[in-house]
């Protein structure tokens, strides 16, 4: 009976969502805001990557919020798992020597790729979130490959804080220069160059550091709880 009701409810929601989305006019140029973005991005923000200019500039306030969401998730996880010890895993498998060697060899390359992606966020696809996540996967490989590995929590937390402060201060500087919060205060430069697009690269590099440090911290917190270590 309960399952029947659930199935009915799902079907009900699914049907109406389908009708709503089925009527969306695809292929027509209805996106008024989108058109403006496409036309004004390069001259007004100096960023070649339109997606980045929307994420970091036009709608930078949302991105600041999203960075905060991740920060809160990491903070909340740390709060809930605070002082918690998992069962010591007696059958914890030793990583093979291939994994250990591979992890050490790959880690610098992964970090380099991540950094490349967030430094060039305003030029090529990707950005702070993507680059930061790639760096965190590098840390994950280290955790898997080296049994005694521990991320330096104090360092990660300092990095996280400094990156967050950079983002907010970049916003407040806009106010201090008599403009709006998060408004660009630097010269736009030549579009296509690494040093262009005003404060966009600065913010995206800060986001990259922040996301990388946060996800690495989350992974390490989870690992030490399941391994039964403090």
């Amino acid at each position, binding site marked *: 009976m309960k399952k029947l009701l659930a199935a009915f409810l799902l079907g009900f929601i699914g049907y109406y969502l389908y*009708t709503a989305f089925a*009527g969306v006019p695809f292929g027509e140029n209805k996106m008024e*805001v989108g058109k403006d973005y496409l036309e004004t991005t390069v001259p007004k923000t100096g960023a070649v990557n339109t997606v980045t200019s929307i994420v970091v500039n*036009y709608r930078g306030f949302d991105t600041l919020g999203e960075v905060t969401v991740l920060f809160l998730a990491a903070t909340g996880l740390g709060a*809930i798992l605070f002082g918690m010890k998992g069962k010591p895993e007696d059958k914890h498998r030793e990583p093979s020597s291939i994994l250990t060697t591979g992890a050490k060899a790959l880690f610098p390359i992964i970090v380099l790729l991540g950094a490349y992606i967030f430094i060039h966020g305003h030029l090529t696809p990707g950005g702070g979130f993507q680059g930061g996540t790639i760096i965190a996967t590098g840390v994950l490989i280290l955790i898997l490959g080296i049994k005694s590995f521990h991320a330096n929590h104090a360092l990660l937390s*300092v990095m996280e*804080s400094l990156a967050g*402060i950079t983002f907010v201060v970049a*916003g407040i500087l806009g106010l201090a220069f008599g403009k709006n*919060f998060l408004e660009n205060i630097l010269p736009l430069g030549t579009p296509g160059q690494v040093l262009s697009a005003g404060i966009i690269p600065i913010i995206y590099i800060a986001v990259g550091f922040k996301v990388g440090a946060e996800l690495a911290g989350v992974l390490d917190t989870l690992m030490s709880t399941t391994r039964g270590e403090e």
Partner: protein
Amino acid sequence: MPELFPLSPVHYVAAPLLAAFLLPLVAKLSRSFIKILPGLTFLYVLYVSAVLYPQALQAPIIEQIAGWAPPLGINLYYGPMAGLFASLFSALGFIVWLYSLTQMKQEPLDRFYILLMMLVAGATGMVLTGDIFNLFVFMEITAISAYSLTAFLREDDKAEAGFKYILIGSLASAFVLLGIAILYSYTGTLNLADLALNMDKVPLSVRVIVFGLFLVGFGIEAEIFPLNGWAPDAYSAAPAPVSALFAGITVKAALYALARVTILLFPFAGSMALISILGLVTLVISELAALHQKNLFRMLAYSSMGQVGLAIAALGLFTAEGVYAALFAMINHAIVKGMLFLTVFAMAGGSATLDGLNGMGRKKPILSLLFTLGAFAIIGLPPFSGFWSKLSVLTAMGQTGNYAMIAIVLATTIVEAAYFLRATGRLYLSEGNPAEGKTPLSAIAALAVLAAGILWIGFFPGSIDETLTAGAQDLLDTAKYTEGVLKD
């Protein structure tokens, strides 16, 4: 430095964010900063309120973030309504901080205060923003802080409550996000004012579907029946200062979002009537459920939902008086319920039961008096604030000829009186075990501020009349809103 940093509404969000990112750093310098910094932050946003709110009463302040005029960029709309709520949230945040100074001992305190500040900042952002996706982002900030704070005390049942909340809350987020996606794909804009002008591009059937999605999404956070199953568990699991903020802030922000979005985007006849009916159903069911509770926090949680139901019922009348009454009820509830949660925790601890109140009248006279004051104010006895808020609700209902609604509200008031007077009776008429511990001064001070608010509104209800009228007008006058935002 007024010249260097001209005050603007974005300070409500930027200052707590900066403080939250700074807190882990300054905590390394000295542990005492962990407690000081949030207090300074709340004081600062209160100062922002003191400067900006009088200006907003003259004319709404519209701020463009990153210098892009809407609909290209995100704007903040700081009118009388947003100003009222932002000021209320900041004040409650400060009072709860003051109370937590001595009453909150559970580590890790740095994380507790970060989450607390972000809960307040997220809810404030929800009422400030003029962009529907930005609204979603702030709703997420509020919700994620709330989930973590619910499970903060790290016991099995608290974890369960937190998990329940996170599941239902994620559903709420998903529904709101789907609704936004549908609106965006039909209109091509996310700005609330611009959306209001472009709603004719959305077929009526789709508008009803999106309204349904928003009603469920915001309704979950606003604790509307039958979407409020998470609330009693979350209220009783969370540390009491947090429960006070749930009742005073998160619910109010979600209600504001629901009201703003409904009035701007879905002003068809049925939407308001539906909200009104849901409010009444919530009121009746919650008050009846509260009658059966032995755990005081659960009792207060159900009473909270009932009060929210009352506000929603008045809101759905869709008249100036109705919105006025709804605002009055929300403010009254934020102050009184906040005080009740904090008083009960100070009196009987985290797992307070009705029996725990026995004989407290002699052992903790000040706290008992405060509890009694709060109980009387919630029931709506004169001369306390609750009397005037309930009276305005009833007047608004009478003016629209909804006498059945009046009967329902009066009947639930009797139920309310029954369980609150029962609890008050335990304070003075029963014998109990000797109490231990003294209540610290900072906690008493925090409670005294709230009590003063109840008495002030009770004796001088005219003093907040202008505020409420302006807020109600701000919410109902959609033409002024859209013109103000899109004037360029």
